């Protein structure tokens, strides 16, 4: 009864997303990608690449995380609101890290 007054504008704005169903085939594809990613990261750890070791490991981890977020967690098919929410989480985490590091990194600059 109340749909007729329910303002579509409030849910079809950027906050609204289709209810998309991801197929098992797609999930399997993602699953295999993730397993491969794990294999690569373990492999990569066996090579000595100096400073690049942690960078590569984190890059792979981040790629895997993004894949999980996009597909397993359906964010690819979600509204912009959800996308922004995810973004906001990582953003404030970055704020925590960079702003705190600004203290630790520059502590030794002067001699006081």
């Amino acid at each position, binding site marked *: 009864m109340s*749909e007729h007054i*329910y303002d579509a504008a409030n849910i079809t704005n950027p906050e609204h997303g289709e209810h998309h169903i991801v197929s*098992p085939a797609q999930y399997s594809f993602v699953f295999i990608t993730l397993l491969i990613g794990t294999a690569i990261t373990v492999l990569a750890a066996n*090579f000595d690449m100096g400073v690049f070791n942690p960078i590569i490991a984190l890059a*792979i981890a981040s790629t*895997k995380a993004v894949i999980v977020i996009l597909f397993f967690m359906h964010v690819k098919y979600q509204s912009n609101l959800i996308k922004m929410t995810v973004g906001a989480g990582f953003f*404030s985490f970055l704020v925590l890290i960079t702003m705190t590091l600004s203290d630790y990194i520059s502590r030794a600059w002067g001699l006081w």
Partner: protein
Amino acid sequence: MDNTIVSTIQSEPLMPHETSEYEPYEHVYVPQHRHHFETEDQQREAGSFGMWLFLLTEIMFFGGMFFAYLLFRNWYYDAFVTASNQLSVPLGATNTAILISSGFFMALGVWAAEVRKRGLLVLFLILTTLFGLAFLGIKSVEYKEKWDKHHIPGASFDVSEFVNPAIDAKTGKPTQKPLAPDAAQKTQLFFFLYFAMTGMHALHMIIGIGVLFWLLWRAQRGEFSAGYVAPIENFGLYWHFVDIVWLYLFPLLYLINRHPLK
């Protein structure tokens, strides 16, 4: 009375206590539908948005520990390298694979619920749970090993092994680079962060498995195979988030210290 609003309220014929046939909950269509939502879409989106916001708080919660790890790894690089090499990469990698599989079955479970297949849903949830338990099992093997080697921070923590590493019988060289005693003390920080982070992660898994049992019970009663899938979907988000935390913990704790900078 000289005021429209007030007076109309006073004489408003629709006043509920005067119209007994008034029924406030008439727009309910499905039993799961809560009265204060106007549409099911609204309810579903509110639920998943709420779940996401909760995961946001989780990011920040783990974030504090990730930062501590970042900081101390830079300060006490050698100690962290040595301590990190105590962890077993095969076990960690296996666990990563197990956790990814668990997440995969969770995702399939969501799909099964969405296409209303009860049997499949139950099957996938069981698989999810089993892989989750397997993860915890391996984790406890790892913990047990730390216990035996006195690597649990606290009173019984023992650094002697890092200062005087065992000598490899074949080569006659130490099995790992010995640490200076003051640096060896800092390995305790590594293990503390290791236990705090993986422990917090395991705690999330344990809670998750508890919820999984509950969802299983409801799923086999067919509650989620009639179009109402929000609990499955939202739990899926949680479960995948826990996976993601591990996706970072694994390289950070196990892998990146295998080849220390000279």
